[in-house]
């Protein structure tokens, strides 16, 4: 008899994602696993800065709220949670989950913490001459500015944690699809060198990793692509067989839709060459995938495959890259565009006089040319928003920039309103490749802090 399908739900597609759809899945999805994918490229570097300020922090700011919401349903139904919400501090995140569990009365709850993605020390010690991808620079060129360096771990790094009786598995940087591939490998005992099967598992992960982006989120275009009940949009779940066949679906009473169209958009999202989707566990091949609508809000995905995994792991480096000062001011009514343009010209001249002319800058009119440039026919908009952004060296310089924009009130064109200003430190990212052999992962089982191989 065929083995029962494994049910995996997606509880988040990014750090700030909505919580109610995750709770609905936890309560009604009859899930084996609920996965929260919460790390964008820069998230760990920003979390690392937070951890430098406060060693007790540096994990996902919504971890507490998410766990409080879903733990009761997950514990009641035996649903295990897998997440990269550990960000720059998985161990502290694990302790936070234990604390919440105790408050909720789940004294038996165990958390497995996966460590080893943080390779900053190794990088500093041994890889300064390594090239940065897509540039002519080496690690040494940004060494003094480095904030973080994290390797994209594969599903393999999560397997020891899955073999424990932990209810919650928490990591830092793990390749997004690997968060979903890992429970498939664990549950169905897939071999770590069965490349076609791992390719299918990566596809499941890739389809789910952005959560609502496959159930009708980021899809609606009224009159062309209508999405039912977008306000109550649900998150997806996958029913996966031992052979890697998958059906993507959602809860019947959630809003949104799962169609061949939504699934095609997500399948191709950010994969570049469909024959070679590089992952830590396998090079996945989505080029022959077929999508079939097999029921209302049920799409079957067939035909993914894969080839031998790469010998290196991608490492993302976060580094300090100056400050950005950005200010905005609105103009409306007759002559709005001309007054907005005058505002830009005036600020530009004043910043040049102050010696800011050499900095990289943007002078945009939102509503006219801020996003697509001057590529559409010029029109006379009812309102525009002047936007000025400069990349500068220091916080004080960024403050000078935004104050010049605000000063448009009393020193600029007529009837400007709604000034806003922001100063932020730029944390940029670069990437490099590190041999697998240089990266050592480790699993800790809490509350006993028992270390596993």
């Amino acid at each position, binding site marked *: 008899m065929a083995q029962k399908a494994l049910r995996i739900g997606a509880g988040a597609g990014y750090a700030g994602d909505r919580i109610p759809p995750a709770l609905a899945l936890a309560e009604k999805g009859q899930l084996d696993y609920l996965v929260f994918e919460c790390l964008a*490229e*820069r998230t760990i570097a920003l979390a690392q800065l937070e951890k430098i300020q406060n060693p007790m922090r540096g994990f996902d700011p919504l971890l507490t709220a998410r766990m409080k919401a879903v733990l009761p349903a997950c514990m009641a139904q035996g649903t295990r949670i897998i997440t990269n919400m550990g960000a720059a501090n998985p161990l502290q995140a694990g302790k936070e989950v234990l604390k919440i569990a105790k408050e909720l009365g789940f004294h038996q709850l165990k958390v497995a913490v996966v460590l080893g993605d943080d390779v900053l020390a190794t990088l500093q010690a041994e890889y300064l001459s390594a090239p940065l*991808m*897509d540039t002519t620079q080496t690690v040494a060129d940004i060494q003094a500015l480095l904030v973080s360096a994290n390797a994209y771990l594969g599903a393999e790094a999560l397997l020891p944690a899955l073999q424990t009786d932990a209810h919650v598995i928490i990591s830092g940087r793990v390749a997004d699809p690997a968060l979903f591939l890992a429970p498939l490998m664990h549950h169905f005992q897939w071999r770590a060198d069965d490349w076609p099967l791992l390719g299918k598992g990566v596809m499941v992960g890739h389809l789910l990793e952005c959560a609502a982006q496959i159930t009708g989120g*980021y*899809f609606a*275009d009224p009159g*062309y*692509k209508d999405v039912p009940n977008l306000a109550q949009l649900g998150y997806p779940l996958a029913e996966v067989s031992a052979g890697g066949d998958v059906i993507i679906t959602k809860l019947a009473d959630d809003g949104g839709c799962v169609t061949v*169209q939504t699934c*095609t*958009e*997500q*399948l*191709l*999202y*950010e*994969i*570049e*060459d*469909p*024959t070679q989707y590089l992952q830590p566990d396998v090079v996945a091949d989505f*080029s*022959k*995938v*077929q*999508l079939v609508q097999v029921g209302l809000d049920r799409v079957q995905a067939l035909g993914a495959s894969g080839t031998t995994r790469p010998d290196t792991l991608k490492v993302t480096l976060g580094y300090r*890259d100056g400050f*950005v000062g*950005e200010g905005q001011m609105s103009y409306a009514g007759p002559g709005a565009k001309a007054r907005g343009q005058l505002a830009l010209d005036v600020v530009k001249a004043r910043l040049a006089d102050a010696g800011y002319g050499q900095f*990289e*800058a*943007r002078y*945009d009119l*939102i509503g006219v040319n*801020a*996003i*697509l*440039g*001057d*590529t559409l026919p010029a029109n006379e908009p009812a309102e525009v928003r002047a*936007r000025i*952004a*400069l*990349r500068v060296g220091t916080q004080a310089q960024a403050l000078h920039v935004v104050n010049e924009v605000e000063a448009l009130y009393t020193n600029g064109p007529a009837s400007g309103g709604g000034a806003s200003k922001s100063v932020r430190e*730029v*944390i*940029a*990212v670069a*990437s490099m490749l590190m041999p697998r052999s240089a990266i050592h992962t480790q699993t800790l089982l809490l509350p006993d802090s028992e270390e596993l191989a």
Partner: protein
Amino acid sequence: MLLRDIAHTRTGDKGNRSTISVIAYDRQHFEMLERCLTPEIMLTHFKGIAKGPVYRYSLPQLGALNFVMHNALVGGVTRSLALDAHGKCLSAKLLSLEIE
């Protein structure tokens, strides 16, 4: 007609590259997409935005093309001063392309 009448699109980003998928609502329009949406046309349509090169991958069984446009995001999401640093709006702009 406009591309919008026969296809839908989604943008993603990787470093300084913009990825745009173009998917025919009806498979019978896929050949038209292949004929009309060449890398050269994409570079022309995104003049002033994407410097290129542009690579195209075909997925006929999905009625879809997947484009990778290099040097399209003002240095990349994390460094760009652009309002839409991810280039998320580029897929919508593509829908305004006139095709026949």
